[in-house]
């Protein structure tokens, strides 16, 4: 059995590196790199579709009074914007990064279940075609919020069943992808790649995959009950039939809270790769980071009703969920401290991946702190369903998850293409994004505190000024994002050739492979020496 005892060089294309050509390469893809690329391209397209909807929202909210949009259409924009971004952009982007990086990082030749991988991806274009088509049927698109509470959601027209079926399809894609991740990590790690030597990106994805398998079926159950209530005479959510609309909320948020950790845990992983690389110093407290991630995942199952503090929950319930929600701040804080300690007494340089990671660290922490405020129940009575909540979750999702995705792409793009991208343009993308994301979302804290509810197309005159600032920030942020696909496209076409290790301080098995890696990498497992050299700590 041959071990790769030497770092592969750029000329290392062996005779086994032929790949299929034409459309069959993509439609029949079983290669983790190709499937990863497809997920990322799909996520990028969804990001711009969801982003356009956000631009429409901010356009209508620029001034009080209704200038452009019918209120029903506005509600369908807020609903679809969230569905596109959560299920179309962020989750597929993480799955794309998982597909590209996990096999290379654990020394595996591919994902454990390649044909399942193909199926998982190809469900998505169909699911989203169905979802987007629902905008064009009589009655318009779904307009009950991405949370789809009954009875309102049951007032939907033809778009309602289309939305439900699209969500079922997306859920199946996520569950199958998650199974693939778990099986790959548990079974295909190279000998010597023990669990506690794995890069943190792999750890966070392992834990995320378990969360997905646990909660996506719960969402499927919730939306199926919506479907049967509407079409088959069940009364799960109707008091007259012995049901309860609040039960839907419990079931939805039992999915929904772990879901938001599904959106952010891989970000923690990416940032835990980038910061040590550009600090030239190993991650501080590797084991603590693993345990903190696992604690967050466990705790995420027992906080769900903090989305429901105003529904009329018994006092004991409100107290329990307040305390458990405050508790989840602890492991999250530990991670922030560990990243900061990694930088402390390091040797820092500020390439685009590091810029995005640092922006994440700063701005995600702000989002986390507003989350701590939201946990306090009596105060939450004033925050719930206002722009304060909107500000909170956009801070953790945009400069949180999205910036971490972008940072990850800027980190690994040279590995995927063999070319260094235009660093100057990437820094422009970074600065414009960071500045305008704050112009867009920070004022929304003020709006919420001043009393502006969410999901409204028009508002009282005293909310005008900060809405205008936010909208200007939104347009500028949105425009800046066009730099991103341009930079990537330009890099794919060509750039300064790089070797295996694109970044001086980078550690990990992926950096032992050529850039770009061969179509099939680690066909022979890496040696223990290579694993040691690649080990994060």
């Amino acid at each position, binding site marked *: 059995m041959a071990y790769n005892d030497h770092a592969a060089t750029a000329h290392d294309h062996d005779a086994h590196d032929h790949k299929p050509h034409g459309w069959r390469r993509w439609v029949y893809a079983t290669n983790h790199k190709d499937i990863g690329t497809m997920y990322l391209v799909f996520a990028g397209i969804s990001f711009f579709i969801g982003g356009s909807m956000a631009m429409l929202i901010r356009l209508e909210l620029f001034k*009080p009074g*209704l*200038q452009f949009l019918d*209120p029903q259409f506005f509600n369908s924009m807020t609903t679809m914007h969230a569905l596109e971004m959560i299920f179309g952009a962020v989750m597929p982007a993480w799955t794309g990064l998982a597909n590209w990086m996990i096999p290379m990082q654990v020394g595996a030749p591919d994902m454990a279940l390649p044909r399942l991988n193909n199926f998982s991806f190809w469900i998505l274009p169909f699911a989203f075609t169905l979802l987007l088509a629902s905008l064009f049927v009589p009655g318009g698109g779904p*307009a009950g919020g991405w949370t789809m*509470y009954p*009875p*309102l959601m049951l007032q939907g027209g033809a778009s309602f069943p289309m939305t439900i079926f699209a969500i079922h399809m997306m859920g199946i894609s996520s569950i199958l992808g998650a199974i693939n991740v778990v099986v790959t990590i548990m079974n295909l790690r190279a000998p010597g790649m023990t669990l506690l030597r794995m890069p943190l990106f792999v750890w966070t994805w392992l834990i995320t995959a378990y969360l997905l398998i646990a909660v996506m079926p719960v969402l499927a159950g919730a939306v199926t009950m919506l479907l049967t209530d509407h079409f088959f005479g069940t009364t799960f959510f109707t*008091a*007259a039939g012995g049901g309860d*609309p609040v039960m839907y909320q419990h079931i939805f948020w039992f999915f929904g809270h772990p879901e938001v950790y599904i959106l952010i845990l891989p970000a923690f992983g990416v940032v835990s790769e980038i910061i040590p690389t550009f*600090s*030239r*110093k190993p991650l*501080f*407290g590797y084991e603590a980071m693993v345990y903190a991630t696992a604690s967050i995942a466990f705790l995420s199952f027992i906080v769900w009703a903090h989305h429901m503090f*105003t*529904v009329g929950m018994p006092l004991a319930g409100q*107290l329990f969920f*307040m305390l458990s929600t*405050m508790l989840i*701040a*602890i492991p999250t*804080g*530990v991670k922030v401290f560990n990243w*900061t*300690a990694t*930088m*402390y007494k*390091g*040797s820092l*340089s*500020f390439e685009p991946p590091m810029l995005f990671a*640092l922006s994440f*660290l*700063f701005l995600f922490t702000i989002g986390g*702190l507003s989350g701590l*405020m939201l946990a*306090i*129940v*009596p*105060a939450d*009575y*004033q925050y*719930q*369903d206002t722009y304060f909540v909107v500000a909170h979750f956009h801070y953790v999702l945009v400069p949180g998850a999205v910036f971490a995705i972008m940072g990850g792409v800027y980190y690994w793009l040279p590995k995927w293409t063999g070319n*260094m991208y235009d*660093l100057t343009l990437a820094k422009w993308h970074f*600065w414009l994004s960071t500045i305008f994301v704050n112009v867009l979302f920070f004022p929304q804290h003020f709006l919420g*505190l001043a009393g502006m*509810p969410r*999901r409204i197309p*028009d508002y*009282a*005159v005293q909310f005008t000024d900060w809405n*205008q600032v936010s909208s*200007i920030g939104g347009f500028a942020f949105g425009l800046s994002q066009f730099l991103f696909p341009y930079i990537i496209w330009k890099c794919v076409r060509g750039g300064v050739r*790089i*070797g295996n290790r694109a970044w001086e301080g980078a550690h990990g098995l992926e950096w032992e492979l050529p850039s770009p890696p061969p179509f099939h990498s680690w066909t022979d497992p890496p040696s223990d020496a290579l694993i040691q050299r690649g080990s994060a*700590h």
Partner: protein
Amino acid sequence: MAAGHEIDINMMRKFLSRSAMVAALALSLLPAAHADSGWGQLNMTQGVTAMSRQIYGLHMLMFWLCVAIAVVVFGVMFYSIFAFRKSRGAIPDTTLVHSTTVEIIWTLLPIIILVATAVPAATTLIKTEDLRNSQLTIRVTGFQWGWNYEYLNNGVNFFSRLDRASDAARQLGSGVDVTTVPHYLLNVDRPLVVPVGMKVRVLVTANDVIHSWWVPAFGVKKDAIPGFVNEAWFDIDSDKPGLYRGNCAELCGRDHGFMPIVVDARSKQDFQAWLKTEQLAEHPPAATASAPAAP
């Protein structure tokens, strides 16, 4: 071969001056501040009840705690960014990867802080759920798209909808300048009238979909759920009669943003007088059976 690329100072300077020009241009497009100007609206209201003030206090406590945490964490972060730059010749201390003592401290200290803040939070929460000894009960029903108020045991029942001036102005392409409409989107045709200095209980429910009854000045928000009845209470300071405005706080369809709440808080005597007038209007003494209140 991307070794240490640092922030290009000249590029930063050019970017800052250009963005300053863009910002100046953008700001010039904004309307000038006026009486209703929102620039000063930065914080939650303290409200006009003891509970709303307690809530405000909790909010400020958590806010300053978060500021303190942010100052410390970002302080270390920015210090590191400044002092440990490779371009400044920093050599990484690759042995600084572990410290059980520090890990324990920064796990325990937050736990202690959170337990400390949980105590006042729980105390206030328990008080908000104390619905005993109320002296007036009003059933609040949310519907698409307005509110119905019924003074239980008093025979007064009426609907409260967005006032007609706001409703005309908010139509798509109405051409009306909404800044000329008084209390645009925060005005109703018939406000809820309540006494000050009295514990008022509201029973909140709905007719169709979930709504939510929210008056920031009282610190009260309660979801209105069809088929179920939620309870909340408020006790407005005796010296604070006046009009208090709120909104529906749960997406309820097309006109979710157009079903505000107005509470007219009056002295106890004025309230009793109003109640009598209302009862007479809705149940005229001329012997015929009472008719339901006109919407």
